[in-house]
């Protein structure tokens, strides 16, 4: 029962823009589900549909057996969201923001005040509790938004790109908060930081141009791609011959060979004998993402080209 299930979920804006196309998957609704994708991939549209803000054009979705369209009121009793561009209200303090958010959810003043103070303390924001939001740093403002939803009774939380714009230290601080939140709640987050998804996700979803490219744990997605090992060589290194795999050269001249396990060890043996500098390991989420999303985009471009050719000849 504790599952997030979507079935043929699609969203079309106007006559031409397909933001989501036939998204079908199921995943456990516990821990952290991270949805990654490029800008415009449809991440926010999917979040807004699941959070009952937006109606899908077709298809269905449910969380823990509650239909997001037909039982939206029931679901709203259990969810909370921090939208992508949410900001703390400038003329209020973190304490006032959290207190009023809880009152809007129907908490009595005294209970809301108690919960707000506890939540701010839990996120180590108590020293900023009475500072105007406009005077806080970007990272602290983001934490204040998290404190609002953490203080609520919601057990399903949507966070749309919660760490965008934060510096690396603030981002890592925020990860600690997310792990804390996920102890007793289901967190559905979107990000375009692959490292973030790899660090946090119990389940990962990859969206490419409105279509779901993959969903599962990071190791299970890694198992699905063609090349699971990566050998990296410094710039200007001689590239060894390979029987299987792909060789790419980065902007800094670094060479990367993506290949299977046997070939990777064969290459590493030869490089070791030759005394070359190199590193070897399982492919990173970056590699997985570019393999999967790159393939998906490439396949669509090919299909479009074939479609156009077909139309021309017909």
């Amino acid at each position, binding site marked *: 029962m504790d599952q997030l299930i979507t079935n043929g979920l699609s969203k079309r804006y106007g006559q031409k823009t397909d933001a989501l196309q036939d998204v079908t998957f199921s995943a456990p609704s516990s821990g952290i589900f991270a949805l990654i994708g490029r800008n415009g991939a449809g991440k926010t549209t999917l979040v*807004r549909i699941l959070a009952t803000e937006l109606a899908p054009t077709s298809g269905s979705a449910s969380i823990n057996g509650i239909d997001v369209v037909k039982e939206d009121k029931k679901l709203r009793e259990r969810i909370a969201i*921090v939208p992508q561009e*949410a*900001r703390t*209200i400038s003329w209020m303090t973190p304490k*006032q923001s959290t207190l009023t958010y809880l009152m809007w959810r129907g908490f009595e003043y005294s209970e809301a005040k108690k919960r707000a103070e506890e939540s701010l303390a839990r996120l180590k924001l108590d020293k900023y509790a009475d500072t105007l939001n406009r005077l806080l740093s970007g990272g602290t403002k983001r934490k204040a938004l998290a404190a*609002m939803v953490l203080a609520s009774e919601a057990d399903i939380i949507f966070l749309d790109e919660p760490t965008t714009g934060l510096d690396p230290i603030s981002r890592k601080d925020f990860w600690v908060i997310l792990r804390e939140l996920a102890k007793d709640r289901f967190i559905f987050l979107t990000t375009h930081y692959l490292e973030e998804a790899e660090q946090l996700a119990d389940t990962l979803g990859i969206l490419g141009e409105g279509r779901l490219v993959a969903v599962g744990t990071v190791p299970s997605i890694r198992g699905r791609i063609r090349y699971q090992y990566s050998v990296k060589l410094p710039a200007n290194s001689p590239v060894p011959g390979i029987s299987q795999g792909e060789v790419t050269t980065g902007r800094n001249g670094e060479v990367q060979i993506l290949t299977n396990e046997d070939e990777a060890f064969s290459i590493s043996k030869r490089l070791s004998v030759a005394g070359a500098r190199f590193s070897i390991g399982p492919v990173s989420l970056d590699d997985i993402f570019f393999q999967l999303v790159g393939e998906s985009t490439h396949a669509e471009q090919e299909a479009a080209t074939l479609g156009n050719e077909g139309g021309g000849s017909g």
Partner: protein
Amino acid sequence: MRRSRSSQLVAAILVNAVYEMKNYPINLVNTVLSPLSFLVVIDFVSRGALIGQAIEGGLIMSMFQSGMSLQGDISHLKNDFKLQDMLVSSPASPAAYVVGMAASEIIYNLPALAILIVLGAIYIHPGAFQALELTAALLLMFLTSITIGFMFATLSSDIVQSFAWSRLLTTVFTAITPVYYPITYIPYPFRYLAYLSPTTYVAEIMQNAAGYLQLSGNVLITDWAIISGLAAVLLVVVSRNARWKEV
């Protein structure tokens, strides 16, 4: 969990009135000064002859301004802070949100209203029935402006334009139209143009109640019918067409 509707109403009042008044008092000063500045100018130019009309005009402007402020404030919270998105995905009641926000506008305008009511008691000194008539007309004005404001807010996605519309509509409907002065000052055929504004009907009712204008029974009934009908129609239109969430 049992959810408190009164908490939801109070939340809107805290966010949009109490905390803003407390932390940004300059906005409050601006809200108080707008209706009073026109009053001072009209009183000065008419050498005190139109002080009563100007006080009534200030009350109408204050009420109309509340509705237009609702437009800007809801739009601001929705588009700049994404508050409405946060509340859509929560058990918050749309009705409690709107009523709470409307109440917050009245509370925000209380200092201006209090000054105008005191001035009204001094210079107009209405009887109990007239006071009741003035109050009813002002409440209809508030209802009309709130519905116009809420309709604009749900359609708006740009805060700069929202505030511009808010100022424009307040100026057109309260400063240009015969609100601070009697409609008889406007020559025909321009007088007919004034009747395109809902504030004109409220001003006629209030000026008649205070004895500044002598309306026939038929005209007075027509004024009440038009402003009540308009408020009812707008209320129906808003409740059917205003958008709480995107679809």
